[in-house]
């Protein structure tokens, strides 16, 4: 794919994306877009972001050669991009840092966020603590129960966690409540969305703060192999870690694979494989693939990993699917658990359950590869947060 220039000036990725929001939000979105475009081309701002990535997050994160895993499959060489080593334990901090710097430029005094698994909530609570801004995180009642460790972490970091009791009581409705809060308080409040979703400019802006992942991979793989990888694999919920690692390779001859959560299986209703089983619709400010009912209501979805448990997907992924630039596959709950066990015991790395979906795809991909090929997997986060879930789903 040459000359990739998405989105257009109205925030459309082909027929996807856009700004399907109540009129009240148009003005704050325009102000945000202007400030973002101004700052992203301002050297001082970019330098401040890079410095924080280095000194606060610990970037660049390593690219690790997975020696034993490579031998296990006996095919292509496998490299792991170690976003699990970011401060707070996942790639989410990249975007949180970028947006908090923007919020400061916009003179906002209050930050809100939505969270599912709690990783984005923790990242936002962390940057708010660092910069001394008031932080409120919306979280579904069900997620609060299943991710109580992260709820405690956020509180420890000084954030207030607001339980969401409407609708599905998970990530989808936490996002709705955050948007409603923003409609009401947009004057003093910045809303830090956690993924490449929502109305323009969010999908573009979050991508710009996450593309540092792919930029580093490009340099690192040249140092190891003196060439580009053949495959890059990443999990996709909203899709921010995937866009972050894919985007710098979009114009290159590299096969990009996104892995969605197939939950209990694609034949059931208990999955969140939005790109595989959904159809385009309008939800939370964007046109994108959605899991929806016959009447156009948004479905309640399922994944063992709370971070993938979302009925929509970033509009850029919808565009990359329809243009056949990225191939989207799926992994079930049990395949993700098996992949968690395999990586932990083979490489000494406990991946997040979200990440484990990308690793599960190696079972399908690797047999088709040859020993002179190179695969990079984005290890988007670490799995300590998931231990309670893993304990209940694993046997030795």
């Amino acid at each position: 794919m040459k000359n990739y220039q998405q989105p257009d000036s109205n925030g459309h990725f082909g027929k996807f994306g856009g700004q399907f929001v109540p009129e009240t939000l148009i003005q704050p979105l325009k102000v945000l877009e202007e400030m973002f475009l101004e700052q992203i081309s301002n050297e001082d701002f970019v330098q401040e972001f890079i410095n924080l990535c280095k000194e606060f997050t610990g970037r660049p994160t390593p690219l690790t050669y997975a020696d034993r895993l490579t031998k296990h499959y006996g095919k292509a060489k496998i490299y792991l991009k170690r976003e699990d080593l970011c401060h707070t334990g996942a790639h989410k901090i990249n975007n949180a840092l970028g947006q908090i710097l923007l919020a400061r430029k916009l003179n906002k005094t209050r930050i809100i966020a939505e969270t599912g698994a709690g990783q984005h909530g923790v990242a936002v609570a962390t940057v708010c603590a660092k910069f001394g801004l008031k932080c409120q995180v919306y979280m579904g009642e069900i997620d609060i129960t299943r991710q109580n460790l992260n709820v405690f972490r956020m509180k420890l970091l000084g954030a207030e966690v607001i339980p969401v009791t409407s609708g599905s009581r998970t990530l989808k409705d936490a996002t709705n409540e955050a948007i409603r809060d923003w409609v009401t308080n947009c004057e003093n409040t910045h809303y830090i969305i956690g993924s490449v979703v929502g109305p323009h400019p969010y999908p573009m802006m979050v991508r710009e703060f996450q593309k540092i992942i792919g930029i580093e991979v490009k340099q690192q793989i040249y140092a190891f192999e003196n060439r580009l990888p053949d495959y890059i694999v990443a999990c996709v919920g909203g899709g921010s870690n995937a866009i972050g690692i894919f985007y710098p390779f979009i114009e290159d001859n590299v096969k990009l694979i996104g892995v969605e959560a197939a939950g209990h299986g694609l034949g059931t209703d208990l999955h969140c494989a939005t790109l595989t089983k959904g159809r385009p619709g309008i939800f939370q400010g964007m046109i994108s693939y959605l899991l929806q009912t016959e009447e156009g209501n948004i479905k309640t979805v399922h994944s063992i990993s709370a971070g993938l448990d979302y009925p929509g997907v970033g509009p850029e992924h919808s565009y990359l699917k329809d243009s056949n630039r990225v191939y989207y596959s799926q992994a079930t709950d049990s395949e993700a658990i098996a992949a968690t066990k395999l990586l932990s015991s083979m490489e000494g790395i406990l991946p997040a359950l979200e990440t484990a979906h990308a690793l599960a795809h190696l079972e399908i991909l690797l047999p088709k590869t040859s020993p002179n090929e190179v695969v990079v997997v984005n290890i988007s986060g670490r799995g300590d947060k998931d231990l309670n879930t893993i304990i209940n789903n694993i046997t030795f």
Partner: protein
Amino acid sequence: MSEIRNYIDSSLALKEKILSVFLTAGYPSKNDYVDICLSILDAGADFLEVGIPFSDPLADGSVIQASSEKAISNGISIDNVFQFSNSISRRNSKPIIAMGYANPILNYGVESFFIKAADNGISGVIIPDVPLEEYEFFYNQIKTKLDIVLLTTPTTSSNRIVDIDNKSSGFVYYVTLKGVTGQSILIDTNKLKSTRELIRKNHLLAGFGISSPSDVHSILEHVDGVIVGSRIIKEIEDGNTKAIDKALKLVSDMKFACKVE
């Protein structure tokens, strides 16, 4: 010529401003909906806004959200909305407006939605999550005699207000507050006055947070009518006759407040 606009013109000529009442389709129940709507119109409402239920109503507060969830669990679809509007329009000639979010309508097919809406007694459509930016994309130059009502808010810039007025038909919907439906009203009178001055083509109706005759009094001077939703839904939550009578009394009191002395 717009039925909605004609109705407003005639009312204003009689020194009466408009009361529009919103009620989620199929709420409190599928069986009672049509009768309750007819009683609301008989009690003095000028327009009926039939709310198309949606799972994720971003511009709405908890009361309308809950009514929407209940309607969805009652199995209400867009075809039910058309059946309701058809029955109501056969028994009462006041304008019916469909109000709903973009996705169920996109999913139904925008063009067939507008055709069937017109066939079933609907005079206008309000879709709060299709702003000017997405107008061309969403409506895709459909030809319709239905009014498409756009919204303006306290955060809308002057240039946009002019564009919204030009694109809107029937009336322009002024959202009184920064926030969602069902919050307490807090009118920025200066913004309302300056909006009013910029709206040249259409009449202006105000909604969000209007829940009593005194709210009507506080805003009526600056607008051509008011819209009430959450408060009525809250009143009829229980669905019993007493609750409905109370809601109807409120409608008639609010309509009385719409008469210009």
